[in-house]
């Protein structure tokens, strides 16, 4: 009996020694899809890769096979005790991640798109999606006014706070833009903001049908805030444009999270950015610092949100080209088509965008909160 105990003790010491020599590790845990979306998930991976390189860490990642596995997967990862940080990527981990964090208080967790639930061993990575949404709303509304449309639209995924925040900002930005137009350009009718929730993030057919309905209702500027679902909205926009014999919009679509213009060059005018990469990088820094958990909220002031810049567009075209994405032309052709579309809309659109961005950065604009169902209902009533 004693011999066994001694042997175990020796093994334990040896194990400690070995783990002490091995490189420290971090692990990314994706709620669905995983890397390869060239958007939210890939940005998380990009941030983790950058952090792994800068801090000499080893990077692992894995994707959930179903929501039923969330807690058991996270537990097995925590159980290994190998990871300096486990990053849960995606809002769907809302229940499982805090539970795992309570079960394994020694393990540090990060929650992309969710709060830290006041847990000392978890960092919540939140974004002011309203800001990116509002910037897209300003552009969409001004382009709609320029072409005499009665409405702008959005194709949304599920009713969850990050999507609500995009929607709230989008509505606010559109109303701000109409006011701006009246002050600086001329009289303008009221615009309606039509938002369709498809209920899934992986149904391009639903997104396409929704966008076609929006276009028929006169909303020819459509923001996609539905992940894979809004790829269908992009397709509807391009099809409507091609059917009218155009090589660029209107109609125009707008992407979310990543700079998605490369997907339909000429028909996607811009994207509401959300720098998931920056957030994950900061989370790794936090895990190494030994500080207690908190909520990190990234906004335009921290370069965590924004409207896609020319540099963003180039970055993502190159990223897609490198990944082997079937682009519509050479990277240079794609970039030219995107920038050409931007030049095709009136100059004042970009002037207004810059003005709005300046006000946001200066803190002179208060965007509506949309973290709960009541709050988003209020926003919808106020900016219909």
């Amino acid at each position, binding site marked *: 009996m004693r011999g066994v105990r001694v042997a175990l003790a020796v093994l334990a010491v040896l194990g400690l020694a070995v783990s002490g020599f091995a490189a420290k590790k971090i692990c990314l845990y994706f709620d669905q*899809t*995983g*890397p*390869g*979306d*060239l958007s939210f998930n890939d940005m998380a991976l990009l941030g983790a890769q950058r952090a792994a390189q800068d801090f000499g860490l080893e990077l692992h990642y894995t994707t959930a096979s179903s929501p039923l596995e969330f807690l058991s997967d996270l537990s097995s990862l925590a159980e290994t005790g190998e990871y300096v940080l486990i990053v849960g990527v995606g809002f769907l981990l809302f229940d499982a991640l805090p539970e795992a964090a309570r079960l394994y208080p020694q393990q540090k967790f990060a929650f992309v798109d969710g709060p830290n639930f006041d847990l000392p061993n978890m960092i919540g990575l939140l974004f002011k999606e309203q800001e990116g949404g509002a910037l897209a709303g300003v552009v969409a509304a001004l382009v709609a006014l320029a072409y005499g449309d009665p409405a702008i*639209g959005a194709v949304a995924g599920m*009713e969850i706070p990050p999507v609500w925040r995009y929607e709230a900002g989008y509505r606010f930005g559109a109303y701000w833009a109409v006011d701006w137009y009246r002050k600086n350009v001329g009289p303008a009718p009221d615009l*309606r903001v*039509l*938002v*369709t*929730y*498809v*209920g*899934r993030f*992986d*149904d*391009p*057919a*639903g997104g*396409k*049908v*929704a966008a*076609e*309905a*929006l276009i*028929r*209702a006169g909303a020819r500027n459509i923001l996609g805030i539905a992940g*894979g679902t809004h*790829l*269908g909205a*992009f*397709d509807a926009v*391009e099809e409507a444009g*091609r*059917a009218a014999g155009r090589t660029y919009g209107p109609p125009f679509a707008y992407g979310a999270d990543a700079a998605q213009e490369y*997907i*339909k060059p000429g028909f996607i005018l811009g994207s509401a950015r959300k720098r998931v990469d920056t957030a994950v990088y900061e989370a790794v820094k936090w895990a190494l610092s030994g500080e207690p958990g908190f909520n990190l909220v990234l906004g335009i002031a921290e370069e965590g949100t924004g409207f896609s810049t020319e540099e963003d567009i180039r970055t993502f075209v190159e990223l*897609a080209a*490198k*990944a*082997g*994405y*079937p*682009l*519509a032309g050479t990277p240079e052709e794609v970039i030219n088509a995107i920038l050409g579309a931007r030049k095709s809309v009136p100059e004042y659109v970009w002037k207004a965008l810059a003005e709005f961005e300046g006000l946001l950065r200066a803190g002179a604009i208060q965007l509506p909160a949309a973290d709960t169902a009541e709050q988003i*209902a209020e926003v*919808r*009533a106020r900016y*219909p």
Partner: protein
Amino acid sequence: MNALLQVFPVALRAMVPITLAAVGEVFGEWAGVVNIGLEGIMTLSAFLAAVVSWATGSPFLGVLAGLATGALVGLFHGFISVRLRGNQIISGVGINLLGIGAVGFGTWALWGAKSPMLDRRFWIPEVPGLGVSPFVFLTPALALLTWWLLFRTALGLRVRAVGENPMSADVVGVPVERLRLFAVVYGGALGGLAGAFLSLDWLHTVSSTLPAGRGFIALANVVFSKLNPLLALLGGFLFGYFDALGIQLASVAGLSGAVPYQFIRMIPYMATLLVVALAIGRARFPKALGQPYRRE
């Protein structure tokens, strides 16, 4: 009123995958073989159709590849369930899982993206002058052809005999296994066409969840149709119509705030369920459906 008419062209497109997959499955079920792997067949063939169209620059070859993929998966299912007399449900589940895994990996390995969009060079062109997809005509034509094959030809009679009472059919010299295999391959091929339509014609993208449940709706449509391909055409259209109408109402009438979207997205399922409930009364399925045949 206007909205009711406006969604008509949308419904014509939405009808295609649900109808094609269901009509194929109707044929297979008449022969006594259930294939619940329609979702997987559509996913796999959507992917391979896109790959071939992209690699060759010919959407037509892409459609053929989709058709062939569906037929091959059908053959695989037939081999397991007819030759090896395996459990048809388990084989179908396997096909669905294979679709998710293989396509998720395949798109990523090939294009570095899990849901790449195809450039319009690789799309199936619309019918000149009409501005609609050729599938809008092909689908009713195939439903009619399948109905004719089943109920107006000697082949159809034999297929139905094999599904109803394989032993009697065998006794009078009808090749049970060969006919069942043929029926499953035929069904798979139509499911493959549905997949090619999804990626090359309707959505212009590929992903592991591309059909988003339409393979399962097609299965419901099979039940609704009481194994009549022409009723399956009607069922496919009805579902597509109510689906599009629900989304149309959600956005345009501005109901989003008042009515939860979950309720609106429920409309097509409720409407289909209602129709099935009302229509199911006299449905009669082949006696030997789902049972492997063992010669004594």
